[in-house]
């Protein structure tokens, strides 16, 4: 469905797709030179907030899981002071290689003030790169709309939490919940993977189950400018047969609506979807729902025709194609495809002559004769 892919239709299961909220050719892939380090969390001046574990680790060059290890091991609940900072320095001195804590501290210790905490085993935890358990998690405040609890009591500094704090009965309930959540997350990721993967043994066999899971809300397509970027400019053009006020008929010239979109985008730092996506994707939608002889396929075929017609009628109205008392009788849409000239260092030759695809005249229904006003 993506115009900016060279082979737009090879998405597995696309034809079955009940809907297409497709990320049409949105560009995303050009890469600047990896000027990474400018933006990277480059070690800043270790100035602020002395003794703050995260910062200390930063100063250490942000290298490894080290920063997460610093500070929390001791479980000292005291205010962040020298200790974590020193830990950071130690890391620094140690040449910033590897995880520092190694989980020695165990997670029973109260989290350090900065939330720094030994990087335990879990990869997930590692990936999350947190500086440590966030004290916030302790507080009874969370999902609910009205979380502030117990007006009388003082929340202990380190209340018991997690599975360990539960009695056996509750542990069983928690374990069940945990299992359900873990399975659901893994299944979901698996399904999304199969949805975005090329057609393969599994998707051929279980395509239906995957689609049932994914559609409609998890549909996605990330073939951004892939496998090849589009190498043509496709202009959607339209002309109309107008019934004039004096009873005559006149045919307008071709309006290049895509060129008008392009002009609206020029010099515009914030192009609107109505300029950048609307017509372009309406045309994609039409192409995807019709064969090369312009025969529609199913509901989508009919819808795409109505959509394109309403859209071009609206746009013609904006371009003042109608005079006073005039009305639209029929409209005709065509596309003009022009190759992007190859780069000047290339010796490829491509034709610069536009290729047209002309659709049949469509009659404009009564309700749209005087235009579509949105």
């Amino acid at each position, binding site marked *: 469905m993506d115009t900016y892919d060279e082979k737009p239709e090879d998405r597995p299961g696309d034809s079955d797709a009940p809907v297409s909220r497709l990320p049409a050719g949105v560009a995303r892939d*050009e890469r600047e030179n990896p000027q990474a380090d400018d933006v990277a969390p480059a070690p800043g001046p270790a100035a602020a907030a002395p003794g703050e574990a995260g910062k200390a680790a930063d100063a250490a060059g*942000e290298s490894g899981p080290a920063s997460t290890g610093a500070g929390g091991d001791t479980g000292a609940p005291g205010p962040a002071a020298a200790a974590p900072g020193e830990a950071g320095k130690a890391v620094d001195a140690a040449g910033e290689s590897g995880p520092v804590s190694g989980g020695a501290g165990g997670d029973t210790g109260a989290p350090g003030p900065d939330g720094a905490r030994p990087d335990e085993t879990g990869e997930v935890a590692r990936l999350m790169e947190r500086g440590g358990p966030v004290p*916030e998690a302790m507080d009874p405040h969370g999902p609910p709309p009205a979380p502030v609890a117990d007006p009388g009591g003082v929340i202990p500094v380190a209340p*018991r939490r997690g599975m360990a704090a539960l009695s056996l009965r509750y542990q069983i309930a928690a374990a069940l919940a945990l299992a359900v959540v873990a399975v659901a997350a893994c299944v979901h990721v698996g399904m999304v993977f199969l949805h975005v993967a090329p057609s393969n043994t599994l998707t051929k066999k279980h395509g239906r189950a995957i689609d049932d899971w994914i559609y409609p809300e*998890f549909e996605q397509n990330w073939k951004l400018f892939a496998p090849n970027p589009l190498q043509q400019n496709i202009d959607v053009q339209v002309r109309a047969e107008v019934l004039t006020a004096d009873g005559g008929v006149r045919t307008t010239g071709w309006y290049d609506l895509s060129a008008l979109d392009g002009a609206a985008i020029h010099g515009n730092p914030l192009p609107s979807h*109505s300029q950048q996506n609307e017509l372009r994707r309406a045309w994609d939608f039409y192409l995807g729902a019709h064969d090369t002889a312009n025969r529609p396929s199913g509901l989508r075929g009919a819808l795409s025709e109505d959509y394109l017609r309403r859209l071009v009628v609206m746009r013609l109205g904006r371009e003042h194609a109608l005079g006073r008392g005039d009305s639209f009788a029929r409209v005709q849409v065509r596309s003009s495809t022009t190759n992007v000239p190859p780069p000047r260092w290339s010796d490829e030759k491509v034709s610069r002559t536009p290729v047209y695809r002309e659709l049949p005249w469509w009659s404009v229904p009564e309700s749209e004769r005087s235009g579509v006003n949105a």
Partner: protein
Amino acid sequence: MSRFALAVSRGIGRVTETALGPYQTAVVRIGFAGTWLLFLLREFPHRQEMYGPDAPWSLDMARQLVAGNHAFTVLTWSGSQVWFGTVYVFALLSSALLLVGWRTRTMSVLFMIGVLSLQNRSVFVGDGGDNVIHLMAIYLVFTRCGQVWSLDERRARRARAARARGEFPAPDRAGPVLWCAVGLALAVVTGAGFLGVGWVVLFWVLWAVHGLWWYVGRRAPHSQPRILLDVVANAVHNAALFVIMAEACLIYSTAGWYKIQGSRWQDGTAVYYPLHLDYFTPWPALSDLMSSYGVIVLLVTYGTVAVQVAFPFTLLNRRAKNVLLAAMMTEHAVIAVVLGLPFFSLAMIAADAVFLPTSFLRRVGAEAGRVRGRFVRGGLARLALPGPRKEAPPTAEETAEHTPAGSRA
């Protein structure tokens, strides 16, 4: 074997006792809510053309499509301008409130409703940016994304500080009122039969859990049921965070691996072409300049593929990951300008942000606090976002409302 068992039990302890990545989930929340908010503001003049009842993609067509695929949207419930205007404003407000973290749990659900309603109403005006916002809006519902940098966090901190001073914090009124209002609205919608069974169940379950959480937290804040709720909430949060990270990896993997198969990505000219598509050249002179040197285009083309394919694997190495992360964010910033895709780029940067290191995020938070402290004094400061909080026992400084919170962290 026993070492394995120990590792597993530690892992379980870890994912049940804390909601990991508080800064990362907060920045993802702020990023997506902000992107959607800016998008809605920018498209305000075009809202009728894109989503209105008389849009070229008419309401009737949307209803036919939705009837077939069962996508969620409240906009098909009525064709009136009043309803459309209400939903648009609702989407604006919910994203603004999610951004500042006011009643984060509830707002994340309302935010999702706003995003899905508008996007599913007109599926043919979106692009990849809308797609990633759509997915993340759903995932955010399951994360405890208001643990830091939110008004919720500030309210909890103040209540704690008040208790530490021996005062009784004022009882929370907005929460129960909001909960009741949402329940009422849900009852009406359920009664009217607008929603499919699946959505009805999901929304009622979320609503019931919010109520249960409030009730248990109030009646028995340290009881077993309360801890169980916390354990489950943490597990769900961590699972959702995992899904968000996996989703980001899948985006890059898909984009990268499919490119490898393309002849233009192989011959090193791919990047040249989008820079010459009329729909993606807001600044033609800049595009020409950027695509005028063959070797540079080659390097950028190869670099793009390499980075996209490599990114998921670099998660195993913190430094390599950070370098690639910075490269990708830079790339998106460039794309925002050069290809004229600001909201797409913003959304992708928000998704990338889930991989930012905590230390970096805290520094940004502190810096934001300082900047705010410098420029916003007086009444406005009370409305601004608090910075990260530390878990030292509340002190006088902690309770001083006018201190820019960020500078303390």
